[in-house]
C-alpha cells in the first residue's frame, strides 16, 4: 500500500472524502500536492480548462511528477426536474462531470509517463438514482462512464477506477440538509436507516478504498467501480 514518494493530486472539499484521502495517502507515504500556493489558498475552477492546466503545471513544477489523480467533485443540488433552474442544473453537471473530464485530460499525459492511475469519486446515487437529484445522479453516472471509457483508452499504462460511496459523514450533508429543509442530525438519521449497516460512513472508510485502488495491491483493477455503501446496493 506504500506510496514510496509517488505524487498524488486530490481535488475536493477539505473535511470530506477528498480531505480524508489526502490524510490517508500522506500516511501511506504518498507525496500529496498541497492545497496552498505560497500561503495563498489555491483557487482553481475545474470548469475552466486554463485553471486546470495551471494547477497541473504547478504540481509538476513543485513535485516533478504525477502518479495519481483522485477527482472528488462536490457540486450538489436537490430540486424536482421541472422546478430546478436550468443554469443550476447545468452547474452541477459542469462542475462534477466537466471538471473531472478536464482534470483527466490535463493529467493523462503525465500519468502515461509514470504509469500512474486515476480514481473518480462517484456516488451510489449514480446507480440507484434519487428523487430530486437528477443533475447530481446524472453527473455521478457520467463519472462511471469516464471511468469505463478512460480505462480502455489509457490502458495498459494507466489504470482508471471509481468508487461509488454510500452516504458519508461530510460537509456535503449540511448542503443536503439545507436543500431538503431538514436539520443535519435529522438527515443523518434518515440516511443511516437506509443502509443495512445502519449507519453512514466515515470519510476515512471511503478514503481506504481510494487508497487501495491507488496502490500496487490493486494493480489488476481497471474500469471498476467499488461500492463502499454499507450494503445499500448489492450488485
Amino acid at each position, binding site marked *: 500500500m506504500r506510496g514510496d514518494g509517488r505524487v498524488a493530486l486530490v481535488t475536493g472539499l477539505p473535511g470530506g472524502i477528498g480531505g480524508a484521502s489526502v490524510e490517508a495517502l500522506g500516511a501511506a507515504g504518498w507525496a500529496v500536492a498541497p492545497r496552498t500556493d505560497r500561503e495563498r489558498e489555491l483557487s482553481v475552477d475545474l470548469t475552466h480548462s486554463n485553471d486546470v492546466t495551471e494547477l497541473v503545471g504547478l504540481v509538476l513544477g513543485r513535485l516533478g511528477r504525477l502518479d495519481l489523480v483522485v477527482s472528488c467533485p462536490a457540486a450538489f443540488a436537490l430540486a424536482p426536474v421541472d422546478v430546478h433552474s436550468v443554469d443550476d*442544473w447545468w452547474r452541477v453537471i459542469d462542475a462534477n462531470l*466537466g471538471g473531472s473530464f478536464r482534470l483527466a*485530460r490535463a493529467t493523462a499525459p503525465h500519468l502515461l509517463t509514470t504509469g500512474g492511475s486515476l480514481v473518480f469519486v462517484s456516488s451510489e446515487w449514480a446507480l440507484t438514482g434519487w*428523487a430530486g437529484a437528477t443533475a447530481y445522479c446524472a453527473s455521478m453516472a*457520467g463519472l462511471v*462512464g469516464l471511468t469505463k471509457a478512460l480505462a480502455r*483508452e489509457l490502458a495498459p499504462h494507466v489504470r482508471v477506477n471509481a468508487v461509488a460511496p454510500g452516504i458519508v459523514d461530510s460537509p456535503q450533508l449540511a448542503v443536503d440538509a439545507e436543500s431538503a429543509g431538514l436539520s443535519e442530525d435529522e438527515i443523518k438519521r434518515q440516511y443511516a436507516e437506509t443502509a443495512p449497516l445502519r449507519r453512514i460512513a466515515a470519510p476515512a472508510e471511503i478514503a481506504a478504498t481510494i487508497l487501495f485502488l491507488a496502490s500496487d495491491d490493486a494493480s489488476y483493477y481497471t474500469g471498476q467501480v467499488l461500492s463502499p455503501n454499507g450494503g445499500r446496493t448489492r450488485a
Partner: protein
Amino acid sequence: MTSPANALHDPQVAPSAQKAVALVTGASSGIGLATARRFAAAGYRVAVNHVDQEAVAEAVAAEIGGRAYWTDVSDPVAVATMVDDIEGELGPIAVAVCNAGIYEERSLAELEDEIWERTIRVHLGGCFHVAREVVPRMRSRGSGSIVTVSSEMAIVGGTKATHYIAAKTAIVGFTRALAREVAPTIRVNALAPGPVDTPLLQERFKVPAYTDTLPLRRIGRPEEIADVILVLAETAWCTGAVWSLNGGVVIQ
C-alpha cells in the same frame, strides 16, 4: 395496425389506445426515424423532431401523418417552445422518446472543450430539457412515459469516445433519478442499444471484420431498436430500467 405491445398489458393504460401523441427527438435518421415510423404504425400521432433536416423530416411527417419540428434539443428555451407547439398542434404528449444524439470520434488528447460541451448538451440536455417540459404536463394529466436512449458503450466503455460515453452514462443516472422522482404517475426507462446500422455508426463497424466478432454476427437494424422502444414505452410495470439490446455485444 395492432401493436404487438398491446398483448403485454392492460389496454386501459396503453397510450396507443387513444391515438395519443409521441414526441421522438432526432427523428430524421437512424433509430429516431425508425421509432417515429414504429409509433405511427402503432397508432400514435408523432412529433418528428430534427435539426437542419427539414426536407427529410417533412417527408417523414407526411408519410406517417405526423408533424415535423426543427428544434435543437440542447437549447432549453427552444425545447419549451417546441413542446408548447406540439401540445397545441397535435395534442397532449403521452410518450417522449429522447433519442437525439451526435457523435464525433476523438481521443482524450484531441477532445476539445467545444466537442465535449456540445456532446453533453445534445445527449444529456436533450433528455433534461425535454423532461422538464413534459413532466409537469404529464403529471397534471395523471400519466406519461419517457424513454431515453443510452448506449451499450455506457455499460462496457470504449475508446476515442470519452465524451459520448460520459453523456450516455449520465443519461442512465438521469433516468434512474427521474424514474424515482416522477413515479408512480410517469414511467421513465432507458434503452442501451449496441451497434446499429445508422449514419452515426462508423463504417468500420459495418464490415465483416467487425460484425463476425459479434455473437449474432451482425449489427442491429434501426427497426429492431424501434420495436423495443415502443414496448418499453408501453410496458406499464417497468420504470427506472435499462434495457440492453445489442446482439450479444454485452454479455456480462
